[in-house]
């Protein structure tokens, strides 16, 4: 028995990360994982990950108790396998999880006859058009909402999206595989060409989602957008009677987005949704600069939070290459400016540039679409790519990581 030899192999659905003397083995099919700081085990894992070994190494039967315990645990969690090495039988191999992204930016840049923007239309999936930038409301945190979630905005100007330009824009998007096309403002009901736009969209059978602040809802004009999906933004202090009235109006495709800044507002939003019998609503926390403790308690994640929900292999790969919140999104403002994210710089202007050119520029310049967790401290973290992509919260709060993991790992 003692002389028996075995093959110890890592399974192909296992994500492996190693940082600062610790290693993580994560089963992407079940979420089961092993975290170790044992030098003995890490040496074993490093050997398995040497290219020539393709995930499998030969081990003796008489290995240490530490090894045995690891092998038992990893086999139980379907992370590693162990098989007797039979003479004259070939060594088993594993196809190790090497991400092969054919149209990776870096790969296309290396090829002489390729352009990074050669199929960029297919990436346009989430478009927000701001018809105007004027609004007479004085929301407490205006200027924060649209930087953190889909929302209306305003400036101190009064700009209206040129209607002809808007039509050209829709034309450019005609074959884009859009998952979301959102139209908001300003107060969209004050958009100079609102009537023309509604008629034109109906004629063309284009049905974007309109977004409007609840206090800007003009019940006299609501019928014009009855056929369209409608999202009503509700912040606090909220005017319950308006929410109630819109809830009672015949708007079959209406949803609500509550923006909350703390626990009391969360409770109020839930109560309002119940009282007004809202079926389709979401609640989004908004950082104000003064409510970090609310975020620490409710948004920041712990190590346990990260591993408690299974992250599939594809998403781990995705987190290495793109930002899953922002990829494919463009925000188009009434003066024609385009941003990949409201927190980032302008990428182009549709008066001068085609949307495809702007998207290509975003792929190259990368203000948002390919922002991943490769900075400090996430770049040194075992959970770097298990974590969701950086979100708007990171940008507005000014922290790369909204978690307590680094503190844990440095212990």
């Amino acid at each position, binding site marked *: 028995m003692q002389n028996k030899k075995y093959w110890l192999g890592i399974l192909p659905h296992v994500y492996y990360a190693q940082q600062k003397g610790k290693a993580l083995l994560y089963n992407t099919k079940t979420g089961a994982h092993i975290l170790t700081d044992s030098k003995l085990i890490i040496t074993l894992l490093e050997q398995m990950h040497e290219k*020539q070994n393709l995930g499998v190494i030969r081990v003796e039967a008489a290995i240490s108790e530490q090894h045995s315990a690891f092998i038992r645990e990893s086999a139980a969690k379907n992370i590693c396998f162990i098989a007797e090495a039979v003479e004259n039988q070939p060594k088993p191999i594993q196809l190790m999880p090497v991400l092969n992204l054919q149209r990776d930016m870096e790969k296309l840049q290396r090829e002489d006859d*390729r352009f990074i923007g050669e199929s960029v239309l*297919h990436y346009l999936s989430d478009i927000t058009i701001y018809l105007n930038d004027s609004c007479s409301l004085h929301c407490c945190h205006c200027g924060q909402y649209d930087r953190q979630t889909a929302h209306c905005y305003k400036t101190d100007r009064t700009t209206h999206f040129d209607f002809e330009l808007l039509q050209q824009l829709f034309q450019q998007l005609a*074959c884009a595989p859009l998952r979301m096309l959102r139209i908001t403002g300003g107060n969209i009901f004050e958009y100079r060409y609102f009537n023309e736009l509604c008629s034109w969209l109906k004629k063309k059978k284009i049905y974007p989602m309109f977004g409007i602040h609840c206090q800007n809802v003009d019940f006299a004009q609501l019928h014009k957008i009855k056929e369209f999906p409608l999202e009503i933004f509700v912040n606090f202090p909220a005017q319950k009677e308006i929410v109630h009235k819109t809830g009672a109006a015949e708007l079959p495709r209406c949803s609500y987005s509550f923006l909350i800044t703390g626990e009391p507002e969360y409770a109020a939003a839930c109560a309002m949704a119940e009282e007004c019998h809202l079926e389709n609503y979401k609640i989004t926390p908004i950082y104000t600069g003064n409510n970090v403790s609310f975020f620490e308690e409710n948004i920041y994640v712990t190590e346990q939070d990260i591993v408690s929900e299974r992250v599939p292999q594809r998403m781990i790969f995705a987190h290495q290459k793109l930002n899953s919140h922002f990829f494919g999104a463009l925000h188009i403002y009434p003066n024609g400016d385009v941003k990949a994210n409201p927190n980032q710089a302008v990428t182009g202007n549709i008066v001068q540039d085609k949307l495809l050119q702007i998207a290509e520029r975003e792929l190259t310049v990368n203000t948002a679409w390919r922002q991943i967790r490769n900075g400090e401290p996430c770049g040194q973290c075992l959970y770097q790519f298990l974590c969701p992509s950086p979100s708007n919260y990171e940008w507005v709060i000014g922290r790369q990581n909204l978690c307590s993991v680094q503190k844990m790992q440095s212990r």
Partner: protein
Amino acid sequence: MNAYLKTSFIKQQLSNLKQLTFEVTDACNLKCKYCGYGEFYNDYDKREDKNLPVEKAIRLLDYLLPFWQSEYNAAAHRHVYISFYGGEPLLNMPFIEQVVAYVEQLPITSRTFTFSMTTNAMLLNRYMDWLATKDFNILVSLDGDRDNNAYRVDRAGHEAFDTIVRNVELLREKYPDYFQRKINFNAVLHNKNSVEEIHRFFKEKYDTMPSIGELNNMGIRPDRQQLFQQTYRNQTESLFQAEHYEEIDRERFIKSPTYQTVCTFLHQYSGFVYHDYNELLYGKPESGNWITGTCPPFGKKMFITVNGKILPCERIGHQFALGQIGEQGVELDFKAIAKIYNRYFARLEGQCTRCFNKKSCTQCIFNMEDIDIDGKPVCHGFTTKEDFEQYESQVKNFIARHPEDYYRLMEEVVVE
């Protein structure tokens, strides 16, 4: 009948065309024994020493331009290859010059046009200055050393080897940088050469690696079957017969059929290959709506014969033309094209459903016997469970023997 192909998809392909190839002339100054338009075959239009009129090419370019500028265009920037093919294209140089001049002035900033040509190099000495100026990609047909090249003869039966090599040498001497960047070779494998000989010749003489092609085994005249079989050589078998098989295979890497097979397997079955960022983010699209390994029409290229026929590729019989450039304009009926493809696919769907290798099929419907005849064409690529297991095991054995090549294939090779 299942709608595998829709007209809008064909418009999309045209709007994002990667390569447009003109059969400039059907005349040739060589008479190679195995020529695709020669004695072995019966699936091409009669060769009449004709030239493709420039007007037809211009008519086609004018037809395509609005597609490239349409809402179906997905590219901010894209390379489009404008390729010249024959016969021997250098026999109709005025056509090439005029088309190049026309393409260069097309009012479209989203396209970068790259010119390319397949030539036997017999007239390269005359035109190399102009070709170098236009930075042409040139693919020279040459089958190896003098003996290997014995089938490439002129109309009087004299060997072409000396002239070809002399012209190639001249080009290398005159334009060494251009030669290194833009000149490639294609060798046809047959019974007078071998993969090993071809590989060695080009390595020693030009320090380069040619592509190696087999004789097309479709459209063979029944009375030439035996002769064809005598001439034909299979690339994999020829490679296995090489004394330094492993070394050649590794050097040829993705140009070798072994590596190509492994690469195809990994792309379809490893689960770690993603076409683009969308596949990473949203997952792979359902593969349900396409069968066989046939390219979508104009998905890779458009080929124009000397008679103005429009084909999806130069490697298929002229009877499969999808349209033509007529006197009045370009005649492409998208509905009719979709119908043809859907009809052919319908004839195969039963076999495809049962095939264990349908995900990585490389079988083109137009290279399948009897596809255009009602009844059931037989797919020679049909794979049973046992066949597939054997294929998988061969691939895994290869990877076990060459573990580092697994990483090389996954990290370096761009095939799409």
